[in-house]
């Protein structure tokens, strides 16, 4: 949470107020900074007894054992670490155009996580909200029927 607040503040500061913007050379480091920050959080949080951040990313709707969550968390940490390194490698070895392409292709990971979240977290919430609204509407209908 703290890390995301810091990263968010950085984004807002350089996006809205700072002129002439963030340092140009930082551009290629940005994805790496994010990936390695996330990897560090994944590794450090369990050590400090704060639970597994993978649970927050995927959602707690899966009935997995602690051991399974630990391995998922380690997997996320490994993937983020590697992606941060690969970003630097591509930025130094490949052309700028190819690096931009690589960077955007990494967004597929975000999409997969969003789809997971959509299916297992947002839809149950939507179902709950729908049932709540239906009950309210039914109650309102009964009330109005009695009135008229």
């Amino acid at each position, binding site marked *: *949470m703290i890390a*995301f607040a810091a*990263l*968010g503040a950085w*984004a807002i500061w350089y*996006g809205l107020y700072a002129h002439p913007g963030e340092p140009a050379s930082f551009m290629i480091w*940005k*994805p790496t*900074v*994010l*990936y390695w920050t996330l990897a560090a959080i994944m590794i450090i949080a369990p050590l400090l007894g704060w639970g597994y951040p993978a649970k*927050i990313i995927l959602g*707690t*709707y*899966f*009935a*997995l054992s602690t051991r399974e969550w630990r391995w998922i968390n380690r997997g996320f940490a490994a993937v983020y670490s590697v992606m941060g390194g690969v970003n630097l490698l591509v930025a130094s070895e490949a052309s700028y155009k190819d690096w931009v392409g690589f*960077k*955007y292709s*990494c*967004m597929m990971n*975000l999409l997969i996580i*969003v789809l997971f*979240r959509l299916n*297992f*977290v*947002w839809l*149950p*919430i939507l179902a*709950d*909200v729908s*049932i*709540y609204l*239906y*009950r309210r509407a039914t109650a309102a209908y009964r009330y109005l029927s009695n009135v008229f």
Partner: protein
Amino acid sequence: MPSIEHKPEHIVELNWPGRASERVTLNATGKSGGAGEIFSIDSQPGLVAKIYHATTSQANLAHYRCKIQWMVDNRPALPQVPAEYQDIVQLAWPVALILRESRFAGFAMQKIAFDRTLELDYLLNRRQAAEEGFVADYGKLLTISFNLASIIHCLHEKRIAIVDLKPVNVKVFKAELYVSILDCDGFHIAADEFRSDAPQVTPEYLAPEFHGKAVAHPEVQDRFALATIIFRLLNYGIHPFTGVASDHKHYPPELAGRIQQGLYPYGKLVHKRVRKVPASVHETLPDSLRELFDRAFASVGYNRPSAHEWVSALAIYASKDSEQISPCSKGHLRFTGMPCPTCMRDALIQGAEVRRRSFLARVQTAPGRTLQYLKKTLRQTHSSPFQAALAQAQYTFVQLAPAAPISTRNRIALEILWIGGLLITYWWTS
């Protein structure tokens, strides 16, 4: 009775084969075709006249004259008809030339009693045939097929081919089951002393090798068209190239394209690209006929069965004495030893009707059932264990944890934070 005043152009001269001529008066019948108009002849009640349209070019008229003259002089020998059926006209063949002011105008032919006949096309649909007063059964259909093949065999022996052979050009005598072929002046003639082409074709009855080109072998074309007509007669009007695509390759929407690609699904060997239509009863036909159909539709050229082969194959079924056609337990006629095609067709149609009604009933009750399902889901009162399990989404491959002990409001707030994190991630990686 008021006297009829005839126009001068209706007074013509009949030129008989022995070159004897006779002056006659024509009366309009109101029937007209692509090439000419049909008139009745005052003094010849057994004949009708076909007068070519005034727009016909002189060159065409000259060709027609030669052709009709040859036809008048060379009438083909037709299958024998019993003495009591002598008034049956099997071929609307020209019997005399018609001259108007000494110039060729048309020809006279024997009159077909249309009130006793119906178009062969009507027999392809049993209901339509019944409305015309003809109750079709397999015995009658086989006899009609036999009679048609016999006439075509006689024509082929004289090196005459029909080319544009199709059901609408064939009339069937309802009681006697003999057939009449119309539009004889359009036939192809390949005699030693005279030759005339027949450019008119119908794609649905045209052999695959002649699509997009001239009919080089008219008799081969007749063999294909004859087999197509017999197949349709014996299979409830289903065209041999009507089918259901069984792969994802392009399936031509029109019959002509399917004929060209040889997409014949009713063979004894299964076609890879096309399946039979469910209503087909071709499996109730005997092997002798199915082999002829396979040769007609799965081979080319003179490999196709000739009209004579059809005559030989159909003769035993057209004859009552052979007992190759016998009644089924319900009284329908069927090929002896084979399943009854009528019963099979009734079962197929009835099955389809039951499925159609069931589908319609389901569609009509779908909104009510959906509402009921939703209500049961919301009230958690599903009576069926399967539906209850489905409603609670208890899938075996993903075990979901019980609902978190936090309120929906807090869960939504948490998700908003999560989306914020996602946006920050997006900004940092883009």
